[in-house]
Each structure stands twice: as C-alpha cells, then as structure tokens.
C-alpha cells in the first residue's frame, strides 16, 4: 500500500447535527459523510453552515479545508486537521469544473 492524494471537493451524502458530545466539546456541530469527487468517502465536520435541520444538506457541494485545532483532550496543543466548507457560487476551488 502507498499513500495517495484524495480529491479536495465533493458532495454531502448524509449529515447529522450533534447536540450532545463528549465533555468539553463545543456543540452543536454538523457531522457529514462526503462523497469526494474521485470516488473516495470522508467523514468530517461541516463549517460555515447553520446547524438547522431544515436546511438542504443532501448533495451540498463542499471543499476540504485544512486548519489547526487543539483536540479536546489536549488543550493548547494544536494539531493539523481538516473540515468541510460549502463551495460558494463564486468559488474556484471545485475540482470537477
């Protein structure tokens, strides 16, 4: 097996809005399963969207963003992680044209 680079954009397959998490984790947040444009699948947190169940999440175009955040069990120790953000209408990041 060797490392491979995944697509950095895709569409939301399913979502949930997490209101009760483990102690110390800020809620609510949106947990999505994303179908990446290259055929891979990735779970992650969706940022930049109101956690409102009335919103349309299915097939929402999203992109992967990389950021540094401290895990809840390691405050003050930022780790490189990723999240999803919606692809704006003027956004050029989508890799599927």
């Amino acid at each position, binding site marked *: 097996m060797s490392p491979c680079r995944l697509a950095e954009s895709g569409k939301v*397959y399913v979502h*949930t*809005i*997490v*209101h*009760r998490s483990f102690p110390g984790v800020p*809620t609510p947040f949106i947990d999505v399963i994303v179908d990446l444009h290259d055929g891979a*699948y990735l779970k*992650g*947190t969706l940022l930049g969207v109101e956690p409102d169940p009335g919103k349309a999440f299915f097939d929402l175009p999203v992109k992967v963003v990389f950021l540094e955040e401290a895990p809840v069990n390691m405050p003050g120790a930022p780790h490189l992680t990723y999240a999803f953000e919606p692809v704006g209408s003027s956004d050029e990041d989508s890799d599927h044209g």
Partner: protein
Amino acid sequence: MDDVYVVGIDMIKFGRFPDRGNPSLAAEAALLALDDCGLTLKDMQALYCGNVGEAAGMVGQRMLAKIGQTGIPVTNVSNACASGATAFRDAWLAVKAGIYDVVLAVGVEQMPKGLLGGAGAGPSTEGLIGSNSMPAMFSHVGVEHARRYGTTFEEFALVSVKNHHHSTLNPKSMYRRETPLREVTEAEMIAWPNTKLMCSVNVDGAAAAILVSDRKMMQLGLHRRAVKVRASEMSSNPFAERQLAMPDFSGATRIAVREAYERAGLGPEDVDLVELHDCFATAELVHYENLGLCGDGEARRLIRDGETRLGGRIPVNVSGGLLSKGHPLGATGIANIYEISTHLRGEAGDRQVEGARIGLTHVVGGGPDMGTACAIHVLERV
C-alpha cells in the same frame, strides 16, 4: 443432527445497580433461569458468558465463584452488542454438535455512565472530524434512509412512541411510561434526528438461558414449556461502499437473516413477532427492511400504519425494546430471546402476542474502525 431447545430462560429487571458487579448480576440471572426449569448448576455441562465491559475479566468464572464452582468449561465471549447472542449461539453450537446435552448461556453488563463511543488513546477527533458517538453514527444511518425514501423526523419518532408504550406492559422494563409523539420530538436533541427519547437506555442487566438436546429434554420431562431453536445465525460486516467513513449495519443483518430464514425453512411472512436491535429509533425502521418485514422503502408505511404495534400485523419490540426496556450490551441478546420465548410459551401477560408460534430476535453491534457482528435467532413454540 438433533434439535436444540431452550428449557429455562429469564432476565433480571433492568435497572441501575452501582453497588453490584457483572458477576453478581450474571449470577442472579443464571439462578432465575435454572429455577425456570427446575435444574441446578450441577446439571450444567458448560457455560458461555457474554460481556463487553470486562471482556478480559473472566466474568463467567467469577459468576460461578458466587453460585457454584463445579469445574465445567467456561467460555467468555465479547462481540459488541451481539455478545449475549453470541454466547447463546456458542451454547447452541455445542449442543447441536452433540458435545454437551445441557449448557448454560449468560449475558451481562454493568454499563459505564454517559454517552458511548468516543476517544481511545491519542488526540481526540471529536468535534474536529465529526463525532464518534453512537447517536451520531446511527443518525447517519437514519438520514441515509431519509435520503433514499424521504423518511421524516416524526416517522422515526413514532418508533419511540410505540416502544415506550409497549414497555408499560412489561414489568422487567427499565422505564414504563407513555411518551406521546410531541414529548418524543421535543425532548433534548442528541444528534438530529435522534432526541434523547429516541436513544436506547443505558442500564445494567443480565439474562440467562439453558439449552438442551432433544434427548435430554425428553429424559428430563421438560418439553411442555420448551422453545425450539429453529435457526441460529451470525454474520460479520461484508464490504460496504462507504465503510471507512460510515459503519454499516445493514449488510451483516441481511446476510444473517437470509441464512436464518433458509435454515429455519420459513420466511418473514411466517414470523409472529420480532425483537430487533432498536439501539436508536432510526435503526428500527432500517431493520424492518433489512429483516424483510416489508420491502425496501416501506418501513415508513409500516410504522405509520401501526403494523408493528402490539395487535398489528407483525409486532416489533413488544418488550419495550432497547429504547425503553434498556440496553445493557452483553445482556441484550439473551434478553431478546427471553422476550420471544415468553410469548411462545403464552406467558407474556398483558403484552402477549396472541397465538404466537414463530418469533425472531436480532442484534447487531460494532462501531467505527471495528466492524459489525450480527446474530439472528428464529424460535418456535413446541
């Protein structure tokens, strides 16, 4: 090969017992099951014990230390939410194979407090990369159903209304309180669309069963209240498209139920009642279809039309289910078999499914980066 029968079976009333341990709860259930058929520990030739929290703690031996150390072989089994059913199936296999004639199976769990799932060692990804909580995982399962078939929040919530209603008729249920639809939908949201009343109850519990060979049953004269095991099947998760992002519980359930119907020589239309793995309200609807109780996409109609209520075409989780009776992981698989056996014996009192002849039990467990274990039993009135 000879048939295998359940001659003694019982469970303790599920609850919270912080001052007791797994061995104590298991011992109580084992003694109840022995009393149910008038046998003693000295009659048992082997013990299979299912438990999750103390998987390496030899719970079976510690249970025997409390009620009788006869030197029999003890196998401690851990298989997530299928642990109790796995212990039962191991007992069934041993009798079916002709190795033993009388075997005890016990499932027990003293639960940790709070939300299940969560972090192992190392940096926690919780909140940063979605959630590893069980409610979040099973909400995805429900939302996938909604994506395919348009299932609504209220339809999922109706599962909890039904199972909480059933539990009012079950003296061994943890909770016994009606929860109208509005109370369910307005309860604290845990992970949309599952509110607190749509999550299984975190309780302690134990259940036990005594399985015997055909020959031994007749020799002991225990055929009158016996329940025949028509099928005992297990499966693990087959490959699923999104498995690295989203654990799958449907593939394993579909494999196990297909094998179970085939072994029993019957189909879903022959089943009079079902105890299935309603760890969350969203899961119950998905399993209606996985178990063939209706066609794909028809679970919404089943719950709306009340077909799975007591008195309906195919009552599901008449015990109150994991949602109200409670879900002590290792005990659940045998507690389900207790519920079905009680109906087949015609001893279920106010919640009796009239004329029940064939019943089916289903448990499925697992989690992110682990996999899935599913166990299905088909039982028949003798």
